[in-house]
């Protein structure tokens, strides 16, 4: 199981800030998340499957852009964070 940290605007899907999901890669994990919480993936990814450009995904604190993107490997115990680019009143 991979620990997933969910940002506030997406907690209406998960009802929780911390959830668990499975997947050998980030892409597979996002698919599993969508099975558990229908509609979640389309908030994170564009229709072509790529992560929306204002969304950052970190695996154990590392930005997956600098790893292997959606192919980044995951193992049990890893922590994945979904973080929107900064938003809010200045």
């Amino acid at each position, binding site marked *: 199981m991979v620990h997933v940290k969910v940002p*506030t605007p997406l907690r209406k899907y998960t009802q929780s800030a911390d959830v668990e999901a499975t997947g050998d890669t980030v892409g597979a994990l996002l698919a599993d998340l969508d099975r558990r919480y229908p509609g979640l993936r389309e908030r994170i990814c564009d229709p072509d499957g790529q992560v929306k450009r204002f969304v950052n995904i970190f695996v154990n604190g590392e930005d997956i852009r600098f790893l292997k993107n959606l192919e980044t490997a995951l193992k049990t115990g890893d922590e994945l964070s979904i973080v929107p*680019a900064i938003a809010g009143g200045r």
Partner: protein
Amino acid sequence: MLPASAVLAQPTSPAEGVRAVPSVLQLIGNTPLIEIHRVRDGVAPGVRLLGKLEGFNPGGSVKDRPALKMIEDGLRRGLLVPGKTILDSTSGNTGIALAMVGAALGYPVELVMPGNVSTERKKVVEAFGARVVYSDPLEGSDGAIRLCRTILAASPERYFKPDQYFNPANPQAHYESTGPEIWQQTGGRVTHFVAGLGTGGTIMGTGRYLKERNPAVQIVAAEPDDAFHGIEGLKHMASSIVPGIYHEQELDLKIGVSTDDAYNMVYSLGREEGLLVGQSCGAAYVVALRIARTLAEGTVVVLFADFGDRYLSTNLWLGWQRLGEAAAPAGGGRR
């Protein structure tokens, strides 16, 4: 140390000799208005599109105005006195402005920012000598607001909190400066004013002034079209802690903008107008264009809150785009 009254004094204009302002604070405001000539597809010739370039403020954004006003107000009311620290939560520009004003006046500044603010913002704030406390990035700016309240509650005697979300001096700054400037710069011809929604201070204060001068002026707000967005500085009001200074009934219209549209507009303004602005400006200009396209004639003023160079490390430019494709024309390929 130079007393605050000397730093805040208005400059004099001697007939001869040295002409200098007393401090950086007197350089706040009086920003230029620029005509947008090229990025205006579908807009009738009788409609003018004008950008108010707030990036010309010394701290680099529109937030210099409320930051100065709120601190002046705190000094006047005896809430900010020597020995106190200026404390507030901010996702960026207000923090930079408070740090600059605090430095100019000799007051320490402590800021609570979400951990995912841009690197440039962190560095600029620290360069002004402010102390920064980072809140959970997953909680966004509301998380910073809550953490700031906790810090204040622990030792209220230490701090002066301008509280930009609830301080009437925030919109008042715009009522007294941004509004009159736009009225004068357009010779009273402004028909529409468009700005993004962050604290709501800019659009509330500027809108109030313009409506007083001419009740027919339309006040239009740009906001993200979804709670989950990447338009730095803007709030999706329906899903946020609503600022106390924000009164939606004073707006004529509020229009949602997607993050993609806002980013693409930033690229267009840079390439076609030579105007590199921030992402909230992209959102505001998307709304300005939508309004302008419905008009036969008019003068639409859009507030560009800052310039774009403090976002170069953000998703706006680096995100998921490969370098070199980031500057593709609006509407073109995005990866």
